[in-house]
């Protein structure tokens, strides 16, 4: 069965600083990987996805993620964060069953 681990439950960072949100997955089959963002009182929105091809994936709002098969990781990065990036971020994976499994989430708080 697919499992997704987000290593940090909370990440505080100052505005304009870089940030990395960590995600590891476990799978013995081909996997597709996603990052979603959830703003307060909202549903989840897709930030970016890895299906195949280039291991560096660019998404919306200046975010990018790198798929690392040897380390089974899919960390999310942004070189300079804004106050508006404050939200909860979820890593997700789907395998052969096409069932989306989410990590526990990382609360990113951008401080002025």
């Amino acid at each position, binding site marked *: 069965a697919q499992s997704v681990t987000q290593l940090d439950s909370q990440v505080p960072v100052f505005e304009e600083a870089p940030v990395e949100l960590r995600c590891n997955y476990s799978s013995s089959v081909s996997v597709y990987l996603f990052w979603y963002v959830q703003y307060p009182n909202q*549903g989840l929105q897709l930030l970016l996805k890895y299906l195949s091809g280039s291991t560096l994936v660019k998404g919306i709002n200046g975010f990018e993620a790198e798929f690392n098969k040897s380390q089974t990781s899919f960390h999310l990065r942004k070189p300079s964060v804004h106050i508006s990036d404050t939200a909860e971020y*979820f890593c997700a994976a*789907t395998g052969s069953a096409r069932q989306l499994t989410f990590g526990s989430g990382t609360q990113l708080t951008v401080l002025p």
Partner: protein
Amino acid sequence: DARVTQTPRHKVTEMGQEVTMRCQPILGHNTVFWYRQTMMQGLELLAYFRNRAPLDDSGMPKDRFSAEMPDATLATLKIQPSEPRDSAVYFCASGPPHLQGEAFFGQGTRLTVV
């Protein structure tokens, strides 16, 4: 602008009452998911359907929860009888046939059982 629509957005009910949550998936999507989100458990998959057929509802308490898709434009999640521990935000999401697991989420139904 295509989106997943969930009703109601908020529901407060008394313990023991029946609760029905509705979801209208995006037109053309053939996969529908129901998730429950709580502070303690995070996002839990309750059930999912493909082409209106239930594929997995192992995450759903069978004695009180039921999920159905009466037609391609409507998915329902029912709780009968409701209990305070069912208080949570329930999300519906839908996915198109050709995408591998990507899901588009509704705004959620915030359920409070008192």
